[in-house]
């Protein structure tokens, strides 16, 4: 009896989100693909959309959503703090740079690529590169994880911090990597192949269709997250997050469980990297900086650790504020009040402030996971109680 209701609830909730998600995706897609270029659209709305949420900014937000969902598996599910997630983004990006551009001009490999067969370089089909990028990242995740996951949380965070610095630096200075040019250094790898999508190839300006693609990738990550969460591995992650020692005593292999979280999280970083490379039509080393790692952690924490919907919201809001929202707000403010304040220079001040306020008043994030909410409020209570007790003792 208990079992049957349990399973049916489970499938139903899964189907529910797919319907809602699809509708949202369709609305966004139609708005940007058909409504925006439509000549009958009132100029006010056209300007409004382009000012507050231009297609490029929306797509970039979605790339962040994909990555934040991956980081959520590491930070939110398994409770491992990773401050170097940008490394996976970079590796994914360079996978796209290597395998679908003319970067290796001295080679001529074309595997279902979207460019003519005679063009130099490696041109592997985009969909395959997605998979390759993800798997390479998962491999690196496991590689970095294997020696470091034995560390306790704070030390692990420090090591990931180092990793997140090393990888981008290697690419940044990669023009001469033991005699090989692996990244074109600061020049970056410019022009990656368009995305083959049936009837047409999607270049850098096909925002609408790529929007749909990114939404789909994010949906894949949501799907993976939700499914894994309900299964054997998800329970093990939760148990490790709750009480590592008890989990190992109950037969949960700690290393393997944590490594799985790391690898699957990294996989998503690889997807994000490849997606981003097609979004900006190139791979630029200076984009992969340390601030991105912190930014991603902030998205997960603000949105609501462990809850995919919270994380999506967090990623959306933060990347929007960072990319476009603040600038748009600034220009409106300046026009209205005749001032000339550079709002974008306050970005990090604002983020710092928001983080502090959130930690003070809504620690569990915008859309918390139910368990997290309990945990956060409990600790609050405990503090108050202990303060009360201290007061009493003091008297």
């Amino acid at each position, binding site marked *: 009896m208990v*079992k049957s209701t349990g399973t049916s609830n489970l499938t139903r909730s899964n189907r529910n989100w797919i319907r809602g998600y699809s509708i949202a995706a369709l609305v966004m897609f139609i708005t940007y693909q058909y409504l925006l270029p439509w000549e009958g659209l009132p100029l006010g709305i056209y300007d409004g959309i382009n000012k507050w949420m231009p297609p490029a900014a929306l797509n970039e937000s979605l790339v962040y959503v994909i990555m934040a969902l991956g980081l959520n598996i590491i930070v939110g599910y398994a409770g491992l703090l990773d401050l170097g997630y940008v490394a996976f983004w970079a590796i994914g990006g360079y996978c796209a740079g290597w395998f679908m551009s003319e970067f290796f001009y001295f080679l001529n490999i074309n595997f279902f690529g979207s460019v003519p067969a005679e063009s130099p370089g490696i041109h592997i089909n985009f969909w395959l590169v997605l998979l390759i990028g993800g798997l390479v990242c998962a491999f690196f995740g496991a590689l970095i994880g294997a020696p470091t996951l034995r560390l306790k949380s704070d030390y692990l965070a420090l090591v990931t911090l180092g990793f997140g610095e090393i990888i981008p630096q290697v690419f940044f200075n990669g023009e001469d990597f033991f005699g090989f040019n692996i990244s074109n250094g600061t020049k970056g790898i410019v022009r990656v192949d368009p995305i083959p999508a049936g009837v047409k190839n999607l270049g850098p300006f096909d925002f609408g269709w790529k929007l749909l693609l990114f939404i789909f990738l994010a949906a894949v990550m949501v799907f993976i997250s939700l499914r894994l969460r309900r299964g*054997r591995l998800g329970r*093990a992650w*939760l148990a490790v997050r*709750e009480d590592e020692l*008890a*989990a*190992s005593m*109950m037969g949960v*292999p700690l290393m393997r469980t944590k490594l799985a979280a790391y690898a699957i999280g990294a996989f998503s970083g690889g997807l994000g990297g490849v997606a981003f490379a097609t979004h900006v039509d190139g791979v630029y080393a200076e984009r992969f900086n340390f601030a991105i790692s912190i930014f991603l952690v902030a998205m997960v924490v603000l949105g609501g650790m462990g809850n995919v919907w919270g994380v999506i919201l967090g990623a959306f809001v933060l990347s929007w504020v960072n990319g476009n929202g603040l600038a748009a707000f600034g220009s409106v403010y300046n026009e209205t009040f005749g001032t000339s304040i550079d709002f974008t220079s306050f970005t990090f001040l604002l983020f710092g402030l928001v983080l502090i306020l959130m930690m003070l008043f809504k620690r569990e994030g915008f859309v918390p996971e139910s368990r997290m909410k309990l945990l956060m409020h409990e600790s609050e209570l405990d503090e108050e109680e202990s303060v009360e007790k201290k007061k009493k003792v003091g008297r």
Partner: protein
Amino acid sequence: MAKNISVAFGGLLAVNDVSFDIPKKSIVSLIGPNGAGKTTFFNVLTGLYKPSRGNILFGDQDITDLPPHKIAEIGIARTFQNIRLFGLMTAQENLLVAMHSHLKSGVFATIFRTKRQRKEESEAVDKAQAILDFAGVGRWTNEYARNLSYGDQRRLEVARALALEPKVLLLDEPTAGMNTQESQVFIDFINKLVAERDIAVMLIEHDMKVVMSVSQRVTVLDQGEKIAEGSPDQIRSNPRVIEAYLGKPKVARK
């Protein structure tokens, strides 16, 4: 099963040359004053500490150097002196975690929810429910472990250990904080457990009433050394045990 175990922390010898054997389908107890090394001994058996000397055998298998999760998989389950449930997981999830090593579904099976995975999950859920019912916490299936009463948390912890399908169950002060009536219920539960399942139970216990009524054999540790072993009656009248618990009679009083 355990042979000549010694555990040293730096210069401190916490357990010194203790040998111990848990026969099949038996209930044995480990008692001793505070700091005698009882819990340390448990921690060695479950792989949390590696003994400085000595071996642990499970049947014919040497499990001394296995990591904790392997030992759990082989069939030694435990509860903790201070309850260590996964507080923010439901009672059912707590048990399902303990079944981890018995479940086979991998990442891909879980993502694609294969037929086998669904079957395995629903069987695991049924089994968890059966164990919860057996342990008397069946009505708390979907309640977070932390919300249960103290006694129910103790019972749930035993249920979680049972979900591992252990051959040996180590209980660290299971009746701590229980009143006489609750202890009696617990004694009945342990007896039922051993009667119905192929399992051996080892208790650490301070409540002598519990120890004396359930144990077939009692071992006494004091300052890391085994000072006595025998049936409850033998232990009751053993002068060294009385000495360890009550102190040495002063010569003057003779």
